[in-house]
């Protein structure tokens, strides 16, 4: 399977140990590049996330990077956050006001090197993550969550993600989720 210069059948997918960090990787977003090259290993060291790299198996060129962490989606029996915060000040959570929550995995970062843009490698990695937690799920996980950069929102929408909040005015990102039940045949 050859698409635009990247041979998807000649990929190496590697779980990155905390003693390593990715080098020679540029996804075009300085903020994300900085995290991937300089800060990801700290998160790994403290067991806060796990990182994976996708490289060309022949040359070692890094083509994509992603990191994952456990997450949950919780719902409160409250009208809004103000009512919830008022309630939290009281001691103890009575049963009738307890939160409902569902297990999830957060896609903390996903970046594709500029040399591999348009080669479907981001979709390939995302498909792999969906399948990992659906077909080969070890613990129970209903949703994938992501804090998507605004320019990546169309990519996630195309891949079945929905918006978490009806109104989200953050200037940089949108909170989105994917329901893994969509994969039930």
């Amino acid at each position, binding site marked *: 399977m050859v698409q635009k210069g990247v041979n998807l059948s000649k990929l190496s997918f590697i779980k990155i140990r905390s003693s390593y*960090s990715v080098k020679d990787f540029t996804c075009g977003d300085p903020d994300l590049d900085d995290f991937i090259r300089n800060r990801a290993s700290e998160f790994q060291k403290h067991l806060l996330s796990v990182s994976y790299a996708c490289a060309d*198996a022949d040359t070692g060129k890094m083509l994509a990077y992603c990191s994952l962490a456990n997450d949950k989606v919780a719902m409160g029996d409250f009208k809004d956050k103000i009512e919830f915060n008022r309630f939290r000040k009281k001691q103890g959570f009575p049963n009738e006001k307890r939160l409902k929550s569902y297990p999830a995995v957060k896609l903390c970062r996903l970046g594709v090197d500029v040399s591999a843009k348009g080669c479907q490698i981001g979709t390939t990695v995302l498909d*792999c993550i969906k399948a990992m937690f659906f077909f080969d799920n070890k613990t129970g996980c209903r949703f994938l969550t992501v804090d998507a950069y605004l320019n990546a929102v169309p990519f996630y929408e195309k891949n079945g993600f929905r918006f978490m909040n009806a109104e989200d005015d953050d200037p940089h990102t949108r909170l989105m989720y994917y329901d893994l039940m969509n994969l039930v045949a």
Partner: protein
Amino acid sequence: MARPIRETPILFGEDARRFLEAMQNVKPEPPEVRARILRNYELMKKAYERGMADQRAREEANGGVDPWFKKV
């Protein structure tokens, strides 16, 4: 300095209602999308086996360090 990732918020009110409604009305992926996801998963499983085996070989050949990565 990289921008912090926003935590998944606790959903309230209309957001919670919309979310629960979506959970109860799952939109199954079309068969061709499901097949693509499975195909890509199989491809990446092979890429993972290859990637980890090749990394062990590179480390053995380079005094315990994989030259594809920066040691930190």
